[in-house]
C-alpha cells in the first residue's frame, strides 16, 4: 500500500452555520407593518481589509448589517482598487460563507482495517504532532532538510517560522510556473523586475501592446482599471494573441499569431524600428549598451521572413511597429504576468524588455514608472540562524539566473529515500493542479517524505496528501502583515478580522506561533497577538493600529520623481550600469546574449495546441467553490473553432474529453464552438476539474488543463515551466 492514500476528507464534517439571515429594520420603499426592508436600512458597521481573493491585495471594507455579513466594497483612498473591487473581491464573502471550508485540524491515521483516514483532532494534538516530527527531522537530518511550498500573503508567517527553525528552502509556483521568466528577463536587462502591482503606467499610455496577456479576463484590478483609463483617453491597443481575447476585441490592431512564435514577432518589430529609424536614438545612446550588436542581430528577422513563422502579414507588423513609435515614449509593451509558456520565456521577456528600451519607455510617462513603497521598520526580532543549505541544493547547478526556489526542482529533490528533503510545509498552494503534468513525480515525492503538513482554508486536492491538515481561517477573520507594495506612491493597508473565526479555524500567525513555541523558538514570537506587531510598525511611521482600523489605508507622499528627470544620469543595477540590449552575463554562461527565435513544435495530425487562460470570475481553483462566484461560472468550457468542430463532428454545448499524446484523459468539458479561437488550438480557463469530493460545488465540473500538460519544456535560465507546449485531441463521450 502507498504510504499515503489520497484521502477525500469525506463524511467528516457537519452542516454549516454561516450565512446571512433575514434582516429586520424598516423600509423607505414599501412602508407598512410588514415592510420588506431595503438593503442597508438596518444597523450598519464596517471593518477594513485588503483582499485575498487574488494576490493584488485591494483594500476595501467589509460591511455588516444587523451583525450579519452584507457586502465588501473598495476603499476609495486605495491605489490598488481606487474604491472598486473586482468580481472576485466583490464576491469575497463567499469564501467566508463556503460550507465546504476546513473546520478542524485533521490527522492521518490508519484504522484497524488497515485503511487510512483523517481523524479530527484538537489543535494541541495536531500541533504537537507537527512539532514532534519537525524536531525529529532536525535531529536526524537537520532542519535545512525541509521545504516551505507556498503562495499568498499569509505565507509570511510560515516563512518566518521555517527560517527561525533553520530551513533555507522555499518555493512558490508564482515564480517558475508564473511570473518568474518575466522578472528575470527584466532583471537581466534593466537590473530590476516589475514588482506587484506592476510599474506599468497605462493610464498615461498612448499606445499599449499586450503579448498574450488577456487583461480583462485576467482581472488584476489595477491593471484593468489603468488599461481602461488609458483606452478611455484614446490610447491605441495592440494585442498579440492566437485567440480573439477580450482586449483583442478592444484593439486597433489584433495580431492573431501562430502559437509560440512571439519572439519572431518581437524581433521583427525591432527590425522595423531600427531599420526605419523609428527608435528613440537619444534614449538608446544615453541609457543602453549593445545597440550595434542588436542592430546586426535583428537584420535577419524581416517582417517578410517572420510572416512565414507567425502567419502575420508583413504590413500588419510594420503598421503596428509604426503605431508604437508614433506614441513613444508613452508606449507600453506590456511585460505580462503569467509568462511560463514555451521554455524560452526569459528570452521572450528579454525581447519585450529590449523593445521597451528602443521605444524609450522605461522610466517615462505612459511607459514604466519608478515605484515607491513605505520605509516600514521590521519588528525587532533576533536574526535567523544560517541554514546549512538552501533551495540551491535542489537546483543542482541548473538555472543559474533563478533568484529563488523552483517548485518542480524541489519536488524532484524530495523523491526517494536518499532525497534531500524530508518534510514539507505547504501553505495556500494546491500543488496537484498548479504544477504542470507532474502528477507521478508529485505523488512519488509525497510518498517519500516523512512529513507533509498542509495549511489551507479549503479541502483542496493537496490536503488529501497531508499527514496533518491545519485549517486556517479566511482573510476576513484574521490579521496579516501590513500591505506595503511599491506603487505609484507609498501606501499601507490593514487586514483585520471582520468576523470571529468560524468553526475551529485559526489565523496563520497563531498557528505559526504555536508551532514555534513547541519548537523552542519563543524568542521569534514575543507577541501575544499579532496586532501588537502591526501597532508597533504603524507607530514607527506616524500612524497606529487604532487609526488604521478606521482608515484601512494610509497614503504617503512621493519622496522622489515618478519618471526619469530629463538630463539627469541614471544608474541601472546591471553589471554595465546600463540597459543591456546585449547581455554579457548571458554570453558568459553560454546562453544567447540576445533573444533568438526557435520554431516551436507543431501538433501532430488531429491534435491541437492546448491554450489556457483565465476567466474574470475566478482566481483559478482557489475560488471555483466560492458559492457566489460559482453562480457566475460553475464550469469551464472548451473553445473550439467551428471548422475544427465540423471536422470532428463536435456539437456546441455537448461534452467531450481531451487526451494528450501520453494518453492522459481529461474529465468531460462542455464545448463552446466559437470563432474567437483559431483552427490550430483549443482554449480553456484554468482552475476546474477538481477531484476533491469535499469541494462539493465544483467537484466534477469542467476539466483541468494542468493535468493534460505534457512535453513541458524547462527554461534553462531560471527553471520556468513551459506550459503551452502541450497538444490534445478529442475523445467523444459515449452517447
Amino acid at each position, binding site marked *: 500500500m502507498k504510504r499515503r492514500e489520497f484521502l477525500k476528507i469525506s463524511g467528516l464534517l457537519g452542516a454549516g452555520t454561516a450565512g446571512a439571515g433575514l*434582516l429586520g429594520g424598516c423600509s423607505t420603499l414599501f412602508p407598512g407593518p410588514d415592510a*420588506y426592508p431595503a438593503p442597508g436600512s438596518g444597523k450598519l458597521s464596517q471593518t477594513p481589509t485588503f483582499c485575498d481573493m487574488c494576490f493584488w491585495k485591494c483594500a476595501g471594507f467589509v460591511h455588516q448589517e444587523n451583525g450579519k455579513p452584507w457586502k465588501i*466594497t473598495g476603499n476609495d483612498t486605495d491605489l490598488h482598487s481606487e474604491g472598486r473591487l473586482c468580481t472576485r473581491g466583490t464576491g469575497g464573502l463567499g469564501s467566508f460563507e463556503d460550507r465546504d471550508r476546513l473546520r478542524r485540524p485533521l490527522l492521518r491515521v490508519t484504522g484497524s482495517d488497515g485503511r487510512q483516514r483523517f481523524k479530527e483532532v484538537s489543535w494541541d494534538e495536531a500541533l504537537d504532532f507537527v512539532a514532534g516530527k519537525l524536531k525529529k527531522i532536525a535531529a536526524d537530518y537537520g532542519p535545512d532538510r525541509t521545504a516551505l511550498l507556498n503562495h499568498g500573503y499569509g505565507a509570511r508567517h510560515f516563512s518566518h517560522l521555517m527560517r527561525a527553525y533553520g530551513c533555507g528552502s522555499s518555493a512558490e509556483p508564482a515564480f517558475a510556473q508564473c511570473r518568474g521568466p518575466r522578472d528575470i528577463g527584466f532583471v537581466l536587462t534593466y537590473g530590476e523586475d516589475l514588482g506587484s502591482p506592476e510599474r506599468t503606467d497605462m493610464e498615461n499610455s498612448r499606445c499599449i501592446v499586450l503579448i498574450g496577456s488577456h487583461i480583462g479576463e485576467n482581472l488584476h484590478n489595477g491593471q484593468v482599471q489603468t488599461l481602461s483609463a488609458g483606452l478611455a483617453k484614446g490610447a491605441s491597443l495592440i494585442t498579440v494573441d492566437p485567440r480573439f481575447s477580450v482586449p483583442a476585441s478592444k484593439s486597433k490592431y489584433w495580431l492573431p499569431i501562430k502559437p509560440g512564435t512571439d519572439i519572431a514577432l518581437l524581433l521583427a518589430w525591432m527590425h522595423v524600428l531600427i531599420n526605419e529609424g523609428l527608435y528613440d536614438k537619444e534614449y538608446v545612446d544615453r541609457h543602453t549598451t549593445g545597440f550595434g550588436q542588436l542592430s546586426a542581430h535583428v537584420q535577419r528577422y524581416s517582417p517578410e521572413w517572420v510572416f512565414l513563422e507567425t502567419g502575420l502579414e508583413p504590413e500588419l507588423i510594420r503598421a503596428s511597429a509604426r503605431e508604437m513609435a508614433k506614441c513613444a515614449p508613452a508606449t507600453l509593451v506590456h511585460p505580462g504576468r503569467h509568462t511560463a509558456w514555451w521554455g524560452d520565456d526569459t528570452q521572450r521577456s528579454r525581447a519585450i524588455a529590449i523593445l521597451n528600451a528602443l521605444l524609450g519607455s522605461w522610466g517615462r510617462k505612459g511607459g514604466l514608472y519608478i515605484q515607491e513603497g513605505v520605509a516600514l521598520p521590521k519588528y525587532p526580532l533576533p536574526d535567523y540562524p544560517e541554514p546549512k543549505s538552501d533551495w540551491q541544493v535542489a537546483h543542482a547547478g541548473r538555472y543559474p539566473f533563478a533568484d529563488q526556489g523552483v517548485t518542480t526542482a524541489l519536488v524532484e529533490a524530495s523523491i526517494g529515500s536518499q532525497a534531500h528533503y524530508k518534510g514539507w510545509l505547504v501553505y495556500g498552494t494546491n500543488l496537484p493542479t498548479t504544477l504542470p503534468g507532474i502528477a507521478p513525480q508529485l505523488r512519488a515525492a509525497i510518498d517519500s517524505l516523512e512529513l507533509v503538513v498542509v495549511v489551507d482554508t479549503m479541502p483542496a486536492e493537496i490536503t488529501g496528501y497531508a499527514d496533518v491538515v491545519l485549517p486556517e481561517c479566511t482573510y476576513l477573520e484574521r490579521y496579516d502583515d501590513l500591505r506595503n507594495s511599491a506603487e505609484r506612491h507609498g501606501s499601507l493597508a490593514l487586514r483585520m478580522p471582520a468576523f470571529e473565526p468560524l468553526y475551529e479555524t485559526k489565523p496563520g500567525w497563531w498557528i505559526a506561533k504555536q508551532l514555534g513555541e513547541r519548537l523552542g523558538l519563543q524568542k521569534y514570537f514575543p507577541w501575544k497577538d499579532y496586532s501588537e506587531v502591526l501597532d508597533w510598525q504603524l507607530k514607527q511611521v506616524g500612524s497606529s493600529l487604532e487609526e488604521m482600523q478606521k482608515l484601512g489605508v494610509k497614503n504617503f507622499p512621493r519622496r522622489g520623481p515618478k519618471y526619469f528627470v530629463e538630463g539627469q544620469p541614471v544608474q541601472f543595477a546591471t553589471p554595465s550600469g546600463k540597459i543591456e540590449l546585449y547581455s554579457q552575463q548571458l554570453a558568459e554562461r553560454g546562453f544567447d546574449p540576445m533573444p533568438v527565435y526557435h520554431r516551436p513544435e507543431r501538433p501532430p495530425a488531429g491534435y491541437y495546441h492546448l491554450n489556457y487562460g483565465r476567466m474574470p470570475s475566478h482566481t483559478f481553483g482557489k475560488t471555483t467553490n466560492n458559492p457566489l462566484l460559482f453562480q457566475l461560472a460553475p464550469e469551464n468550457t472548451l473553445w473550439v473553432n467551428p471548422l475544427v468542430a465540423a471536422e470532428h463532428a463536435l456539437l456546441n454545448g455537448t461534452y467531450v474529453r481531451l487526451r494528450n499524446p501520453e494518453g492522459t484523459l481529461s474529465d468531460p468539458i462542455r464545448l463552446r464552438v466559437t470563432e474567437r479561437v483559431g483552427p490550430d488550438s483549443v482554449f480553456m480557463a484554468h482552475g476546474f476539474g477538481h477531484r476533491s469530493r469535499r469541494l462539493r460545488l465544483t467537484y466534477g465540473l469542467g476539466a483541468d488543463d494542468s493535468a493534460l500538460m505534457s512535453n513541458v519544456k524547462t527554461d534553462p535560465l531560471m527553471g520556468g515551466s513551459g506550459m503551452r507546449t502541450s497538444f490534445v485531441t478529442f475523445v467523444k463521450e459515449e452517447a
Partner: protein
Amino acid sequence: MSHYAMVIDTRLCIGCGDCVIACKTENKVPEGLNRDWVVEATSGTYPHLSTEFRSERCNHCSHATCVYQCPTGASHHWRDSNIVLVDPRKCTGCKACIAACPYDARLVMHPDGYIDKCTFCVHRVEQGLDPACVSTCPTHCMHFGLLDDPSSRVAQLLRTRNYKALAEETGNQPNVFYLT
C-alpha cells in the same frame, strides 16, 4: 418627473460580471437568481471578428408594459420617476409582467413568492449614490444619473457619443443605453 438613465460604454466593458456579484451582495439576491447579467455578442469569421459585451438588466422603461399589464398594481413607477419597482406585498406571482417585458428582466421567483427585478438600487439612489453595479465596475464603463439634468454625465455622454438601446421598436422607451 425624474428621468433616470444608465449609460454603459461597450467599448470599455470587459464582461467580467462584477456588476452581477455587486448586485447580488448589495441586494441580497437569493442563490441561483440574479437581477443583471452579461451578454457577449460576437460576429464575423476568424480572424475578422468583433465582440461586444453588454451588462443587461431591467430597462426601467418610460412606457413600461409590465406596469400596465400588472393586474394588482404591484409593478409601479417609483415616485413620479421611470424607476420600475415591484411591491412584494401586492405581487401574486401571476407572471403577467414577465410576459409583458421585452427584456426578460424579471426573476422567477423570489423564494418569498414574488417577482423580483432590478430596482436601479433605488435605496442608494435616494441617498445620492450610484447603483451598486455602477459603483463597483472596474472599467468605469457604467454611468447613472438624471437625463433631465443636461450637465449630468449620462446626458453628456448621450449628447457626444453614438449609442443604442435594446428593442426600442417595442415602444417601451427603455432607459439603459449602450455607447458603441
